[in-house]
């Protein structure tokens, strides 16, 4: 499938109808699902109905918006009114929300056709999509490997070319790591840029929705559609939303790009092939006119420890709502209500979610709060200050997105800490709340990996501008084809 902005042009010019585009996307998904299992449900009837209405509007001379007729998949963490929304958990297996997420409403207002709900690690906790209660998703570049997580279904279906755009969420790397593994663009916007209303909560001070796309321009268009203040989410920031496409550029003259020695040391120790790939990427940025400057982030080495106190603490509080009373699973008991709570939660949550609830409850419990949770919040301040200082010396930071390409299914499921370490390079940006993007950067052992570009708060336009210049100059995503791909791509 072509990029979303190309599809929109063809639909607006009536070279193809939105209904035809929708049918083609559905056919591609259905052909690949036995291999990839990227979806938890398809919204075929709903999508076709919306497409036909859109075609009528276009025939009447209307312009339905910047995503007119573009098929978009959404992670199953976003509520779509009346449609089953599970967050990858058995505890919500039959949950039908009575309202839609703001991000979903805004996509539809921009003309997008919501095609289905994608698979994910349960409650977005994981880096491989193997923590879904409904089976794992596979990587289109090698179906014996993970697509990354937690937005693994979104990454897999865009990587395979079935849809040009998907919506993901990122708490510590859940957009950027799977984007890197599946050779697509994934942008975690600034915390507060996109409304979290109707997005099932994991860690509320970190969660952020963002686009996962085949090209940088589509990421800019999609962010423009979903960004902006929403009175229904008090943490969405009332900051002007620029035209993110206006900042797309083909040279980097006058741009200062920060390279972080602390990250380079870690990648050199993790995987020399990866380190070599990133050195080439930095040279490509320099060749485009950028000035490379060394910037230090001395506290990012504490990111993992900080994150694995703060995120579980917030999750233990957020997930207290799954108690078998107002919605979701209930395990019936003839004993009292507390037994019902304990049995319901034991049956409804998977192992990773239980692990984090226990860890977070411990970090918040009397006698340990100061030593763990409060200390982590203070170190979060140090990490945020590192970024504030770095951005006085550079416009954008370039770094690894991941320490390795996609790994084999099952390779890390027995060792939670090994899985947590997958987010080493993405967690610090989440803690600092700054926007960060992964863009295809080439191949290591024939598997794709992404370059991470990070900017100051609300500077998504600058990050997208650098990503666009790099994408246009290198063409990494177009230079090879995935093993599993949509027929339209062949």
């Amino acid at each position, binding site marked *: 499938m072509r990029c979303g902005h190309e599809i929109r042009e063809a639909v607006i010019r009536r070279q193809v109808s939105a209904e035809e585009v929708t049918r083609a996307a559905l056919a591609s998904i259905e052909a690949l699902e036995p291999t990839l299992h990227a979806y938890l449900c398809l919204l075929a009837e709903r999508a076709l109905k919306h497409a036909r209405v859109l075609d009528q509007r276009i025939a009447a001379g209307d312009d339905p918006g910047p995503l007119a007729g573009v098929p978009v998949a959404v992670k199953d963490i976003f509520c779509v009114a009346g449609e089953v929304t599970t967050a990858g958990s058995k505890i919500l297996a039959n949950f039908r929300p009575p309202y839609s997420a703001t991000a979903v409403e805004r996509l539809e207002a921009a003309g997008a056709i919501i095609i289905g709900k994608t698979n994910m690690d349960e409650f977005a906790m994981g880096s491989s999509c193997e923590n879904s209660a409904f089976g794992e998703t596979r990587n289109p570049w090698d179906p014996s490997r993970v697509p990354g997580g937690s937005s693994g279904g979104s990454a897999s279906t865009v990587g395979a070319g079935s849809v040009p755009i998907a919506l993901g969420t990122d708490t510590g790397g859940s957009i950027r790591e799977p984007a890197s593994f599946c050779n697509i663009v994934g942008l975690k916007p600034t915390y507060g840029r996109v409304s979290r209303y109707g997005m099932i909560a994991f860690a509320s001070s970190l969660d952020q929705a963002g686009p996962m796309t085949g090209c940088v321009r589509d990421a800019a268009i999609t962010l423009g559609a979903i960004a902006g203040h929403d009175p229904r989410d008090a943490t969405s*920031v009332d900051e002007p939303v620029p035209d993110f496409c206006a900042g797309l550029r083909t040279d980097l003259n006058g741009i200062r790009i920060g390279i972080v020695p602390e990250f380079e040391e870690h990648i050199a120790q993790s995987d020399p092939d990866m380190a070599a790939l990133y050195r080439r990427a930095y040279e490509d940025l320099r060749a485009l006119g950028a000035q490379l400057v060394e910037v230090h982030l001395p506290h990012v080495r504490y990111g993992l*420890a900080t994150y*694995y106190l703060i995120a579980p603490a917030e999750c233990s509080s957020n997930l207290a709502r799954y108690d078998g*009373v107002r919605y*979701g699973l209930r395990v019936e008991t003839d004993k009292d209500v*507390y037994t019902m709570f304990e049995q319901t939660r034991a049956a409804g949550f998977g192992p990773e979610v239980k692990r984090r609830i226990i*860890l977070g409850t411990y970090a918040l419990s009397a006698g340990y709060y100061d030593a763990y949770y409060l200390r982590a919040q*203070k170190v979060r301040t140090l990490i945020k200050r590192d970024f504030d200082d770095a951005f006085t010396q550079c416009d954008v930071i370039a770094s690894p997105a991941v320490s390795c390409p996609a790994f084999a299914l099952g390779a890390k499921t027995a060792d939670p800490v090994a899985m947590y370490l997958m987010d080493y390079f993405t967690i610090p940006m989440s803690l600092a709340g700054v926007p960060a993007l992964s863009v295809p950067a080439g191949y290591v052992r024939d598997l794709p990996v992404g370059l991470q570009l990070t900017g100051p708060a609300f500077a998504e336009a600058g990050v997208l501008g650098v990503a666009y210049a790099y994408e246009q100059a290198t063409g990494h995503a177009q230079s090879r084809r995935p093993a599993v791909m949509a027929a339209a791509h062949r």
Partner: protein
Amino acid sequence: MSNKPIDMDIAHVAKLARLALTDDEAAQFAAQFAHLFTYIRQLQELDVDTIPATAQVIPLRNVMRDDIVTPSLERDAALGNAPDWEGPYFRTPRILE
């Protein structure tokens, strides 16, 4: 780095979290947390006495809305996902003896 056991009474924490764990789960989690805490203990290296805590990263203060009544979820929609209900109420197992 050694995986020192950590000072955690898992049965007590599970009780606080209203989450029934099997003995196997509790033992497995204890071993995994011992490994994770080799990282978490790194935070003790830092002197943070004078550092303020960051709970959230955006410059937002208390957010007020206009005091105007607007429609909210219809009762039937709010009850529509409940495992059990009676009239306008959610129904639970007994709470008091």
